């Protein structure tokens, strides 16, 4: 038994006599054998004083007056509203007789009666709409699908039954689309004549027509009524297309990685509110007992509501993905099949389950270099931290879930001490989450020594867990004149300190690949990512990314790495650095500035 409507509204007036019918509540059957017994009830409140003024017929659900409403009934304790008294009652329905007066559950409709301190308007003052339909009946009925026919609403306005005794009032119901609804002429109740199917129609828009016949005139008054169809789990899940996903796991084998997607459809609804009681509950179970699989894989299911192509009826799509519960080692090499049973636990029928299959092939990852000797040219004038180039094992940019560490080795161990010191010229580094190594100048002095000719290194890449190694030869060609007079005298500062092209291109700077800083001239007017600035290497700085070499010393490329205050118009990069700046951006150790290029500096005293 359930109430199709959770709110009833009507107006009552002073002087209406005992026995006057006010409205009728209705309950729909869940099973054929049920017989509704209606009672007024109170939630946790004490029985309100006004409750004794009303009587609810246990069988018909008609609410009527138990006493004549007097003006004195307006003097209420604890009521602060001014013009109209709101009398609130609650009704409940039980399958059998009961003495209880406590509202059984939360689904007890609220009856709100506006008690007006005036007498019932006479026939002449009552317009047709007032006569035909309740004043503000806002609540639309909700009927559960697959249930029994029955009356769901009293169309007649009971409080106006005898206001115009010589009028004949009849009702009928119309609808654009075929709708199983009719009016019971004797009881003027709206009746649903057949079980409904939400998956066919979620809402019926009915037109209620009230015909008022007087001796001379027939008047028709219409109002619309939406009847909603509530869903229940009466559809089994089904697969539209494939129930098998073939998955290959190779380079990307990181914990949390998701692979392959399989869809399961359900014509029923899966509400996301209230969160805990999600009707149409789907439970999934991995059927494999292999502990390795259990430790390694999981299936992640999510669902979303979508509208069916025809009719726009809401339905649910569940999607399932294979998820890695841990990183896979590079040498993992196996093929497995996972069977995942999806069970629509609230579906009463037998076929409430669907079996999904994930065929998974895990390939090992080879740590190897392409068999070519990588050549890098480098000017002897390069400064310390100048970036020479990158080294990377094959497919390294696709790797995820394991790490490869790079180191440099001198190929020929028994070289002379002098030559040994030449090899200090170049070093290799790597950012924590990057899969490639960056070669950079570690000792610029060694670059300039005549005895340090072309340098050959062995780059060794080692996979962290399995210790699998690979190596390759690299060749660094030094061009430019060796500096016989030893170190160049000029001090190496941060390129970023220079504010003008002339200063910039005339100085040596940390990380300068050509030995000299490089000027980038911005062209745009306002704050732009292409701001003017002085950089050690325009290929890598500024590029809004504080890379492995740049993060060794913020003065290499403060434009990408600074965390300090930036004065002037700018936009910060994510976390640090200057993503965009106004005019020229330059940085001292304490602060960076972005400003339009000034003509000449004024000292305050010269004013």
């Amino acid at each position: 038994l359930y109430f199709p409507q959770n709110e009833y509204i009507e107006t009552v007036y002073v002087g209406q006599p005992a026995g006057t019918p006010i409205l009728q509540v209705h309950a729909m059957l869940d099973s054929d054998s049920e017989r509704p017994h209606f009672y007024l009830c109170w939630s946790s409140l004490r029985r309100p004083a006004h409750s004794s003024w009303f009587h609810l017929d246990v069988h018909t659900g008609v609410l009527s007056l138990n006493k004549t409403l007097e003006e004195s009934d307006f003097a209420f304790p604890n009521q602060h509203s001014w013009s109209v008294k709101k009398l609130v009652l609650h009704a409940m329905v039980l399958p059998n007789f009961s003495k209880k007066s406590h509202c059984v559950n939360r689904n007890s409709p609220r009856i709100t009666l506006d008690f007006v301190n005036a007498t019932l308007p006479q026939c002449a003052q009552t317009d047709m709409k007032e006569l035909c339909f309740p004043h503000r009946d806002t609540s639309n009925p909700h009927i559960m699908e697959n249930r029994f026919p029955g009356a769901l609403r009293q169309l007649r306005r009971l409080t106006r039954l005898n206001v115009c005794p010589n009028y004949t009032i009849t009702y009928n119901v119309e609808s654009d689309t075929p709708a199983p609804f009719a009016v019971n002429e004797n009881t003027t109740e709206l009746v649903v004549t057949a079980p409904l199917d939400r998956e066919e129609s979620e809402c019926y828009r009915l037109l209620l027509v009230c015909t008022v016949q007087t001796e001379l005139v027939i008047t028709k008054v219409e109002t619309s009524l939406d009847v909603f169809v509530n869903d229940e789990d009466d559809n089994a899940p089904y697969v539209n297309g494939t129930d098998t996903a073939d998955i290959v796991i190779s380079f990307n084998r990181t914990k949390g990685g998701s692979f392959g997607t399989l869809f399961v459809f359900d014509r029923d609804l899966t509400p996301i509110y209230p969160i805990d009681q999600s009707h149409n509950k789907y439970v999934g179970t991995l059927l494999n007992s292999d502990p390795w699989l259990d430790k390694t894989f999981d299936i992640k299911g999510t669902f979303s509501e979508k509208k069916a192509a025809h009719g726009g009826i809401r339905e649910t799509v569940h999607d399932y993905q294979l998820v890695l519960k841990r990183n896979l080692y590079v040498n993992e090499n196996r093929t497995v099949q996972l069977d995942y049973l999806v069970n629509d636990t609230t579906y009463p029928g037998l076929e409430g389950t669907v079996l999904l299959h994930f065929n998974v092939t895990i390939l090992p990852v080879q740590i190897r270099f392409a068999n070519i000797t990588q050549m890098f040219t480098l000017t002897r004038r390069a400064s310390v931290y100048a970036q020479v180039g990158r080294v990377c094992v094959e497919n390294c940019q696709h790797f995820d879930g394991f790490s490869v560490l790079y180191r440099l080795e001198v190929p020929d161990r028994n070289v002379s001490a002098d030559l040994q010191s030449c090899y200090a010229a170049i070093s290799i580094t790597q950012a924590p989450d990057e899969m490639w190594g960056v070669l950079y100048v570690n000792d610029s002095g060694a670059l300039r020594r005549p005895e340090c000719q072309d340098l050959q290194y062995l780059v060794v890449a080692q996979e962290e867990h399995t210790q699998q190694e690979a190596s390759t030869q690299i060749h660094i060609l030094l061009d430019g004149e060796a500096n016989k007079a030893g170190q160049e005298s000029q001090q190496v500062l941060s390129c970023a300190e220079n504010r003008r092209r002339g200063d910039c291109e005339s100085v040596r700077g940390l990380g300068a690949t050509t030995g000299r800083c490089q000027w980038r001239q911005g062209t745009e007017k306002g704050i732009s990512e292409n701001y003017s600035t002085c950089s050690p290497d325009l290929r890598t700085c500024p590029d809004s990314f504080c890379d492995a070499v740049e993060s060794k010393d913020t003065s290499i490329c403060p434009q990408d790495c600074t965390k300090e205050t930036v004065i002037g118009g700018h936009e910060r990069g994510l976390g640090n650095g200057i993503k965009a700046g106004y005019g020229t951006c330059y940085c001292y150790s304490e602060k960076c500035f972005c400003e339009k290029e000034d003509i000449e500096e004024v000292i305050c005293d010269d004013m």
Partner: protein
Amino acid sequence: PPFSCHPHLFLHLDEAASSWDGPSALSPEWVDCIQASDMCNQNPYCSSRYRVMRQCLVGKEKEAMLDNNRECQAALEVLLVSPLYDCRCKRGMKKELQCLQNYWTIHMGLTEGGDMDDSSPYEPVAPNRHPDAFRLASISSGNTAPKGFHCPDAERNCNPCLDAAKACNLNNSCKRQRSSYIATCSKEDPNKGETCSKKRCHKALRMFLDRVPTEYSHRLLFCPCQTEGCAERRRQTIVPDCSYKDKEKPNCLELRRVCRQDSLCRSRLADYLVNCWMTPHAVSTCPNQDNHQACLASYARLIGTEMTPNYVDSSFSNWTISPWCTCKGSGNQEEECMNFLRYFTDNTCLRNAIQAFGYGIDNMQNKSVSVPGTSAMTKTGWDWTTGTSEPPFVAIPKVIGLH
């Protein structure tokens, strides 16, 4: 005129002006719920029931406790005749949250049905003093956008929202409070990896709306627009990327449930519905004889709670206001969800109140009232700290410091 603008000779920098100029003192009929609770605690008969009642409402099974536990019902019946039953809270009062918590201790047990709408814990609003003026302003109803506020011909690119920002920036307190919430709402929350801390942003927004007089805050929130740029500025007022949006949209009934679990949010939602929602067939478009001011004030006080509403896009003629939620996934309660959403998206009272506010500005504009200057003197220069990062096409607010 429905909206008045009076020059400020002195701006006391830390004036905690009430954010709504309703009746100043608590009108005689109402006892506030802090006093009521003290009165109850002084009476052993009442205070013992009050303690029991608080126990009944703790924890998950409070619905069952209220329905079936004899002791809870007995306690409630005693409290029904105590001052606590009839107490209310004053908007913007000191210890407002505690007052609201005391209110809900009783009224949580009284709501007659889980999802029915609450009555407002705040003292009722006095009916509007000039109903005709409002009625003139709100002559149009329904959702066809009436001829909105019109820019004075003299001003080529008039932007009332920009003027509102100017008025705020030229007022020390408003400028400082506005900068504070924008800075809080634009700051990355490093430890959570999110763009900002929504909780801190909400608190800063509430402080702004509590402390800054409505003549500044309402002007920023309800400035009438005739261009998309202006409407986008109006939408950005509450820094929606932090205070409003989220990765996903919850179901609106779920958002309402979460709101009702928080005394402040529940109270301000109830107040909004009481002051801004009229049942469709009512004669006037706003409760309390078209009291637009009360509606706008209760709408503004929802900002900074779970139920923070905002303009959904930058359309100026046919704008829509909504909380950040969807009715997708409502199952059988889609109608109830849509009805709840209509309190915001299809609210004639709110629409008229905002438009009436626009006319108010129009009247003020025509009388060319100069923006109130301040006489507060500060020995220092003024400062901004340099800006923040933001997405390419729509820039979120900038925070600048000249120090």
